[in-house]
């Protein structure tokens, strides 16, 4: 599983960080950092939750 963020769309709403903090972090500079681009399979449901919650539909999963 590869996590792809369209940073042209991302507005740092930080909902992804709440859904999957192991993978997404919005830091104090207000930018989103992807902590693991290839997270382990056991995080899939959390990452899918992050994809769903993103108000900008900026996150996608490539298998």
């Amino acid at each position, binding site marked *: 599983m590869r996590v792809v963020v369209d940073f042209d769309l991302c*507005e*740092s*709403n*930080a*909902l992804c*960080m*709440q859904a999957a903090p192991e993978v997404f972090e*919005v*830091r*104090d500079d*207000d930018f989103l950092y992807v902590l693991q681009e290839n997270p382990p399979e056991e995080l899939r449901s959390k990452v*899918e939750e992050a*994809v*769903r*919650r993103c*108000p900008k*539909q900026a996150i996608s*999963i490539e298998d």
Partner: protein
Amino acid sequence: MQNVVVVGASLAGFRAVEELRHQGYDGSITVIGAEAHLPYDRPPLSKQILAGTWESDRLPLTAIGKEIDDLAIDWRLGVAASGLDLSARHVELADGTFVPFDALVIATGAGVRTLPGQPELEGLHMLRTLDDCLALRADLDATPQRVVVVGAGFIGAEVAATARQRGLDVTLLEALATPLQRALGDAMGAVCGDLHREHGVDLRLSTGVDGFEDDGQGRLRGIRLTDGSTVEADLAVVGVGVTPNTAWLEGSGLTIDNGVVCDATCLAAPGVVAAGDIARWPNNRFGEVMRVEHWENAQEQGAHAARRLLGHLEPYEPVPWFWSDQYDRKIQLAGRSSADDDVQIVDGSIEERRFVALYGRAGRVVGVLGMNRPRPVMEYRQLIADGASWQDALAR
């Protein structure tokens, strides 16, 4: 359960469908939508689409890891539901046909409120649907001399910001003495109002609309205000809130009271759930019966309601959250703030328009407002979810 009908081709309705399939439901699903469009995302209607930076092909909602056809939905678009018969188990449509169901998701959302006596005039707009947005955008493209926005709530504020960023003269009218007073209180509401003044908007507070003037040929010319003056306008947008779309449920036997009244699990009647702007339910986390008109709630509650139909009995207890983009500021609000709460700035400063304000009530932290501070808003949202005390939240 072999035949689910979803009324409302909305975010809440679409997420309900997606969750039903995700959970393995393989019976039939029919989605009824009053608009001709497949489900689409509404937040950009007051921002990117209205600004002209996006086209409407960006809006359709997508399902994770699936094409929309994979959801195997029988679409009934462009025809509104007009009635519900719970004992016969069918929905009646405006074209006189009936759609039978054994389980029903009610997700017809809310519709824009109009002002008393509001006429239909060219140049006078409301904003809720994609078609509303495109009509408004076409008028903005014609470079009106002055845009008047009636109502400085979040939608009105976003429309004012978008019009201003298009270089237009904008007057923003608010009937209350402070914008967003009920949601944010006087101090924070004033900050949001100042944002518009700094960007050159003529913000007029404690100013209501007395009537609309036309040019004798059906075109808007001006707006009479409650202070006796008139403001000239060739384009106006009325954004004075929404009311739940429950008219089609009159006489159905469901309890309708400012929305479809549900239990704590989103169940309105046996085999009938409601989600999104139309649903009113007791949120046990706040000890409050609420109806939430936010994007995130529509999708979370849509999914929750779908699981309820499948027999999951967990109560729905979210900490509501939403965002509003105005100019270069991102405003985010989580929880249940109100005008009477204690308010404390805990991060940043109002002067730099980058801050976090906490709302406290009865010894608990109940709300957090952020301007360009997304990370701490999410952290405080978690504290609210955890039921943290006011003191602990302040000390963080």
